């Protein structure tokens, strides 16, 4: 056997091993999701069956039709929750990105006293668990009369996301060579123009990945939303999941149907944005 041949065989073996490994990994990752989709389509008696029914005998869209049906016949105000989730997540993401860009730029391009301490402090503001923030926030918001409004959740999620977006965008700006903007300024641009025309486009992927992380955090957040929302005015999808629990029962099938509605947009968004996402997650890790 020539050396060439043996290395080709090894290469093929490695490719097979890689495919198998990847397949297994993806199976584990996707199985729970597939199971949720399946559960939403199967009658409850089959989901809870014992001995288990592995291959669905009948599929039905009942859970979806009743979910979108009238309140009182098993309907849940999905559209209201969806709209709230969308408004709150998108707005808070946009604001967090704007604030993050300003802050990230400040960290990347300026020297000032106490910079690293300040940066760490910013990060640590994120360590406070939702559970210990929820009541004081509630009391403050109740005083301001903004309980159960979009505004209350938006500002809260902005605060949750700002440290992270600043960090990510700071890293990205640091990778954009300083000379570029300086060259533009020499060419007669103002600093402002230089930023928008030169640095901002280059930082696109960083901003995209910060945005998707911020969006997912807001889209999925539960602990604070459950405390700060009350009705269809502001309840988001994760809080709406609990509509399927009552004192004695959990309608797992219905919950799965709502979960599918919840996951679908996040999935689509990730799919669209993922190329920039991976490119954007460098945090300036390489450039210190």
């Amino acid at each position: 056997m020539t050396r060439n041949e043996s290395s080709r065989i090894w290469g093929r073996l490695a490719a097979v091993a890689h495919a198998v490994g990847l397949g297994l990994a993806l199976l584990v990752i996707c199985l729970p999701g597939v199971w949720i989709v399946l559960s939403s389509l199967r009658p409850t008696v089959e989901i809870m069956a014992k001995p288990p029914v592995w291959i669905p005998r009948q599929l039905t869209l009942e859970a979806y039709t009743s979910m979108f049906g009238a309140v009182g016949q098993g309907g849940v105000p999905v559209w209201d929750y969806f709209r709230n989730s969308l408004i709150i997540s998108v707005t808070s993401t946009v604001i967090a990105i704007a604030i993050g860009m300003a802050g990230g730029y400040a960290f990347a391009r300026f020297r000032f006293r106490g910079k690293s301490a300040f940066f760490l402090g910013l990060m640590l503001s994120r360590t406070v668990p939702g559970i210990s923030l929820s009541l004081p926030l509630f009391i403050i918001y109740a005083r301001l009369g903004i309980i159960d409004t979009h505004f209350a959740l938006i500002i809260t999620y902005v605060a949750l996301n700002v440290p992270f977006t600043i960090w990510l965008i700071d890293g990205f700006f640091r990778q954009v060579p300083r000379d570029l903007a300086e060259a533009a300024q020499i060419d007669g641009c103002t600093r402002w123009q230089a930023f928008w025309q030169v640095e901002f486009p280059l930082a696109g992927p960083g901003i995209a990945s910060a945005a998707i992380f911020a969006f997912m955090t807001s889209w999925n957040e539960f602990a604070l939303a459950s405390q700060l929302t009350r009705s269809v005015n502001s309840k988001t999808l994760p809080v709406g999941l609990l509509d399927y629990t009552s004192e004695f029962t959990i309608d797992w099938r219905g919950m799965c149907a709502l979960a599918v509605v919840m996951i679908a947009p996040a999935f689509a968004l990730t799919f669209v944005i993922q190329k920039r996402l991976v490119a954007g997650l460098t945090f300036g890790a390489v450039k210190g």
Partner: protein
Amino acid sequence: MKRAALISAAIGPLLLASGAAPAANLPGSFPGVTIDAKLIGGKEYEPLYARIAEWEKLTGAKVNIISKKNHFELDKEFKSDIAANSIKWCVGSNHTSFAPQYPNLYTDLTKYVPKEELDKFVASNIKASTVNGKLVMLPRAKFDVSALYFLKSNYTDDAKKKAFKEKYGYDLAPPTTWQQVKDQSIFFSNPPNFYGTEFAGKEEAINGRFYEMVVAEGGDYIDAKGKPAFNSEAGVRALQFFVDLYKNKAVPPGTTNYLWDDLGAGFASGTIALDLDWPGWATYFNDPKSSKAAGNVGIVVQPAGSSGKRTGWSGSHGFSVTEACDHKDAAASLVWWLTNDDSQKIEAAAGSLPTRTAVWEWDVAQAASDPYKKEVLSTFQESAKYAFPVPPLAEWIEISNVVYPELQAAILGDKTAKAALDTAADKATKILQDAGKL
């Protein structure tokens, strides 16, 4: 005319001022009034809320539902509102087990609902809705007491009958005592495919089950002086019942993590022989679309403990009016509306138990043609006779939270029943001392 005026005067100046009508004229007229309400949400509760529109039309008032959540989330919200001093709403969902926690939140409804209306409710339900002499809520048709569901096929099998008689010396029949439940559960069990029984194993649920068992064993949970007394011999016997079931693998091993939904799903999967459970499940268990046990479901009154007393931990959903409400008369009218005969019929028709005498009768008449429903209703009617609520303590839930981990520790075999109960009683006593009750 004179009499009407007298009644109004007795009912209170507030009613007079707003020109509310006395008894005969409920729901009354409140044009321009807006009532903010926080109601328990969930699919099964919705049909009742559809009736609110009609009340709005009749009274000219408007109802604004500002929060709709499940009970535990709502409880959290009420507590947050009290803490933030932001009680700006009028009507709230309530539950007899939770009501004592908010002693000052809700107003006494006897002032706003005429006595002849209150008399139409089952007396024991009204009593359970009264905290410190205040009628803090009107019960809706969501009265909960448990009865024992069972799989009929287990009692028609001659081989099983014979084997059981040989082993235990008495005939195999649906149990009437908890000792029989224990025997039969151990007898029927065939893990992991079939279990004799199951119980809710955590939080307030296991504490409630333990509480009723203490009573059935002839003990007190809280004694006459208000001191926790469940570590008595009766208490140890009560806990030992759960310990023995678990030790003998007569319950699913996961039972200490089960809550009501898991129990319902378990019995509906056809793999549980006996299930002490709530009335809300009756329809679900016998519906082939949701349950494998359909057609095979029997029901008997909850069994008795060694003292001869039956268990009967019960609770009821209801609606309350806040003390801070500006239009208590209108709010009370809404609460009355949501719990009146027509409203209760809607809820009872869906399978839950009413709290008004007339609706009970109506319900039984409705079920005449359906033997299963008839059996269920007459059983629960009997069950309700032995019902008793939890001790009316503001600290009940807090006590539950320190007691249940100890109960679980005993059930799982980490501690003896006595040791677990002694620890739990110490902790419960400390809570009551801290609250200035002892």
